[in-house]
């Protein structure tokens, strides 16, 4: 057989495309349906947060951190305020620490629910998406009744927590945690247990352990490649060393395990929240923090385990009220480099699934 001429097909996916998470864009080159090359293009949501930080005081930057990984904004708040507290040497009251943990873990559950829903949606599982978002609403309601906002929660302050939780918070949280196993069962039934979904994700997009480490991968993506690394255990921040929980690790290295590990993490987060609910003391929620905060000259790199991976803040203080440099190390920005590396040779449909399992949030990628 002689071929007259074959041509590679270049397909532009995004920034406006039904399956793109936010304004990510990639140019994919195909040979038939097989990917030969992928060029990711980012920056459509770049707001220059690092530059903005240099012209704001330490406290004024907190609302901006909400806009990083906007699916889990309490985590971003926590990473930032803890970095500032480390820099300025502020001790946080116990009750605030517990509230932070509860909020952070609720945000992890909410973020993972969005992940499961959008992973299902990227494979046209509309109904599973609906269920995940239905249940996420309940977490957002909890945020709303405490901090006043659903998405950009802005709940934490340097030295503590913005407002104490209202009385109706605890029963609502408890009923959510009680219903959680049933919800997870439902996702398992409609999506993870579905043979079509399994067939599309099992043994697809293999990310070997060594490659993952070399690419500075963090978070569930790394843990699905068989590396047990979780900052909550390995470098405990806040009061995470007081809780008893497992770090789920899967060894499949494929899309399915990257998807499933989030389901397992939700269970562990629920465990942490239950312990925090049990142990939370009464007391103040704000430490004594000077009105005009001037941390001493110095620098600190503080990282927290965001639902997507390691979220690090590298703050440099020159002794003034504004940070001299606020560097944000966002997990998905770095994890996204894996996309060209692990999707070569797979089909266009697989790439959509692989991209979904990397769980990129463009607010965090583009900063």
């Amino acid at each position, binding site marked *: 057989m002689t071929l007259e001429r074959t041509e590679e097909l270049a397909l532009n996916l995004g920034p406006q495309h039904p399956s793109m998470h936010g304004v990510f864009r990639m140019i994919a080159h195909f040979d038939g349906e097989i990917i030969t090359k992928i060029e990711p293009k980012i920056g459509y949501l770049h707001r220059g947060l690092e530059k903005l930080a240099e012209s*704001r005081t330490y*406290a*004024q*930057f*907190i*609302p*901006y951190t*909400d806009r990083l990984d906007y699916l889990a904004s309490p985590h971003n708040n926590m990473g930032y305020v803890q970095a500032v507290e480390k820099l300025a040497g502020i001790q946080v009251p116990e009750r605030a620490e517990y509230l932070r943990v509860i909020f952070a873990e609720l945000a992890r559950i909410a973020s993972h629910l969005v992940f499961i829903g959008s992973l299902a949606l990227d494979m046209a599982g509309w*109904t599973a998406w609906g*269920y995940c978002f*239905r249940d996420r609403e309940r977490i957002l309601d909890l945020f*709303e*009744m*405490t*901090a*006043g*906002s659903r998405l*950009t929660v*802005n709940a934490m302050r340097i030295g503590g927590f*913005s*407002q104490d939780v*209202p009385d109706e918070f605890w029963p609502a949280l408890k009923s959510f945690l009680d219903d959680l196993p049933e919800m997870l069962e*439902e996702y398992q*039934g*409609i*999506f993870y*247990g*579905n*043979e*079509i979904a*399994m067939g599309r994700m099992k043994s697809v997009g293999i990310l070997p352990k060594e490659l993952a480490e070399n690419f500075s991968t963090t978070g569930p993506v790394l843990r699905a490649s068989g590396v047990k690394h979780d900052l909550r255990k390995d470098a405990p921040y806040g009061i995470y060393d007081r809780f008893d929980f497992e770090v789920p690790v899967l060894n499949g290295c494929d899309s399915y395990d990257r998807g499933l590990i989030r389901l397992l993490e939700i269970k562990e987060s629920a465990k942490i929240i239950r312990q925090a609910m049990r142990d939370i003391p009464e007391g103040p929620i704000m430490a004594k923090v000077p009105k005009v905060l001037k941390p001493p000259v110095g620098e600190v790199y503080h990282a927290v385990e965001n639902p997507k991976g390691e979220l690090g803040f590298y703050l440099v203080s020159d002794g003034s009220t504004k940070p001299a440099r606020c560097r944000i190390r966002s997990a998905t920005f770095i994890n996204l480099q894996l996309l060209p590396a692990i999707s070569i040779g797979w089909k266009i449909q697989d790439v959509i699934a692989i991209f979904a399992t990397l769980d990129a949030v463009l607010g965090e990628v583009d900063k």
Partner: protein
Amino acid sequence: MFGKGLFKGMHISLKRMLGPNVTEYYPEQKPTLSPRVRSSMGLDPDKCISCGICANTCPNKVIALTSEKDENNKKVLKTYHMDVGRCLFCGLCTEACPTNALTVTQQYENAVYDAEGLKWDMIKRHRQQTGKEG
């Protein structure tokens, strides 16, 4: 057995199909929001002492206020403008306000047709909402 998951999924979706809806019928049934919800800003000009802390706290320079001194050498609020198009609704200004003159409110239908409409004259808005026109 292969195919078990398929039938389980179909069972779940059928069960949900026959079950009740969970959505709100928004314009007909409006949600009642908790008093902490930050969806809009409200100012009580009588309480305001024109200290300007809110304008200093704001991360995005949304607030612009002017004041003049009255006969007792006390500051009196003259104008108070918020450029809500830039507002993050973070609530830092309301936390900073020493007299609770500036508060978050629960009006969420803030859409306007023209970007000019996002420049709020807070004193005028207060008069309109309390019915004291002019």
